[in-house]
């Protein structure tokens, strides 16, 4: 069995190479500026990279499922915003301060995202809404309704400080150098992300549902004549994508502990990066997660550079990920989209 096609394999390797390139870049810079490498590639850097990558990876895995099945969910950014505001609103309304409350808020965020996505999915699949336009609409709605709700709840577009997710720490193991703090003193949400990414890979490439998803996006008629309801598969993946994006937003909130609704909100473009991440990862969940890690790493690296006083203008450095996205798309632009993305499917009778 091919775990994915050749090109996807190559993509995975590329992702790995890119990560190595980042590390190498860091090494070169440190030598250039005469900073000890260990001041840059710290355990904390790895941890933060994981934290930064998690919401992106979650949304990316959701988005790639939808697109694999033939529906381009360009509303990821919007659903992330809805996820974040829902989690914040839940925490605020139940007035919870414990970890259990944080988990509850995440679950509620997933639930609400599912409900919202259900409506969205009906528009896309049943009423054949233009996927790009509807996705943008979700973003607009997120940018409007999230701060609106915040204002209703808290009088301003920003929430007060809320409970946030703490790291778990496993005694003794956490003391092991390097690996300890990364694996055993970590946000449980990072772990959840890793588990979900791997599970998503297994489901997509090793289970019948995964076969159906791929077939729905490539040749829906083939799937239909094989006796599987194409639109049911698509409903499932779109719902999943909304839930994952909502979860991504909730994770962001749970780590931050405050909802902020000014400007592009606290989600701040992560949903867009998620789309790029799965394109770069060639629709492979592992690849997408690697790409998310790459973006997280780039951002983390830029912070490290500031800390050790290798500073160009922060504002310009902050643009690196965006430039990176364009470069990536230009070089690997001809990502092979599933053949039937964007086409509503109507079985013949």
């Amino acid at each position: 069995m091919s775990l994915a096609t050749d090109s996807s394999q190559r993509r995975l390797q590329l992702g790995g190479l890119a990560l190595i390139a980042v590390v190498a870049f860091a090494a070169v810079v440190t030598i250039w500026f005469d900073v000890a490498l260990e001041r840059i590639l710290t355990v904390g850097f790895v941890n933060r990279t994981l934290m930064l990558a998690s919401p992106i990876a979650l949304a990316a895995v959701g988005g790639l499922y939808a697109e694999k099945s033939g529906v381009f969910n360009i509303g990821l950014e919007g659903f992330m915003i809805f996820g974040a505001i829902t989690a914040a609103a839940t925490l605020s309304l139940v007035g919870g301060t414990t970890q259990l409350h944080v988990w509850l808020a995440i679950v509620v965020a997933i639930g609400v995202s599912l409900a919202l996505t259900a409506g969205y999915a009906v528009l896309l699949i049943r009423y054949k809404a233009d996927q790009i336009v509807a996705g943008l609409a979700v973003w607009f709605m997120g940018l409007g309704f999230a701060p609106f709700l915040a204002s209703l709840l808290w009088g301003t577009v920003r929430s007060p400080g809320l409970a946030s997710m703490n790291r778990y720490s496993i005694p003794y193991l956490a003391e092991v150098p390097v690996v300890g703090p990364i694996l055993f003193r970590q946000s449980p949400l990072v772990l959840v992300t890793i588990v979900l990414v791997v599970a998503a890979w297994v489901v997509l490439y090793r289970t019948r549902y995964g076969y159906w998803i791929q077939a729905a996006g490539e040749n829906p008629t083939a799937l239909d004549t094989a006796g599987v309801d194409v639109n049911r598969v698509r409903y499932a993946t779109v719902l999943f994508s909304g839930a994952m994006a909502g979860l991504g937003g909730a994770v962001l909130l749970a780590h931050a502990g405050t909802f902020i609704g000014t400007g592009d909100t606290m989600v701040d473009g992560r949903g867009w990066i998620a789309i790029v991440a799965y394109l770069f990862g060639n629709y492979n969940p592992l690849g997408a997660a690697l790409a998310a890690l790459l973006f997280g790493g780039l951002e983390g690296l830029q912070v490290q550079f500031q800390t050790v006083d290798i500073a160009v203008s922060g504002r310009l450095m902050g643009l690196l990920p965006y430039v990176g996205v364009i470069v990536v798309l230009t070089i690997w632009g001809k990502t092979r989209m599933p053949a039937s993305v964007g086409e509503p499917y109507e079985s013949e009778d």
Partner: protein
Amino acid sequence: LGGDGGNGDGGQVAIISSDAGFGDNAFNDNALEGLEEAADEFDVEITQVEETETAEFAARQEDLAEDGSYDLIVMVGYQHYEGLVEHSEAYPDQYWMLINDHVEGADNVSGWIEMNNEMSFLAGVAAGTLTHEEIDHEGSATEPDESVVGFAGGEDIDLINAFEQSYIEGVEWVDDSVDVLTGYGGSFSDSEALNDVATSQFDDGADIVWHAAAAAGAGAFAAAEDNDRFAMGVDSDQSVANEQYADVILGSAIKALNEATYQVTEAVVEDDWESVSGEQNLSIEQEGIDYVVGQEFEGEMPDSLEGNLEEAKQAVVDGEVELTCGPTGC
């Protein structure tokens, strides 16, 4: 949003936010707080206008002035300056209060320049002092042997660069061997980004991180809590507004914006505009800038802090300390 505070018998006051918007737990909220106190006291009705597009500031000023029902219009942030130059002249009978700048020759404007540089300097002095001290509070602790502190800014812009520079000068005034790590999250709203900046600095040995990132500053507090270190607040006593982080907020460098807005409202209500007309300063000298100890740390601070702060303030007042940067830029 209208209708906060009193019922309006005492008059009406409008406030236009800075581009950070209300709810920043800092600048805007601080100004609003003074207004709300005055509103309660003098039966004034407040109208909040949140405007996050600087391009629309002038239009908002005009909308309010045109409306004609406001005894005072308060504007938060120097980005309002350009519009106000025009409108203070176009609406000579309207009283205006500008926070962060003043308009030359306009009697109807009460322009408050807050010495952000002095405030940042005090934050630096406090950080520079405390990094040498042993502080241990609910799991968080400093490392007195290592002397590293951090500065986490929001957007990397001229205004915040002035905060950074003055802070560094404050730290170095105490001890120029202290290392100051600096970084920017790139946004006043992305608290995760600021969290990363602060965490990176804690990783690199910082005991205390002071932030100048408005709403995103919460990320620095969260980082302090996660890393068992400390942070310091900005503009107002943030250990009050961010109660959940009170256990890591050693203190805050503050400017008495609330007092300023209170005072100007009072002057309007009492028909005493002259007392606030023209350029006003929120400075150490005028006791508009200070450093306050965090709620949970009252009485726990070493004496050196108080001593150094007093000395530093005196030095500023006496002109012994000359800061490189002005209040809004270098």
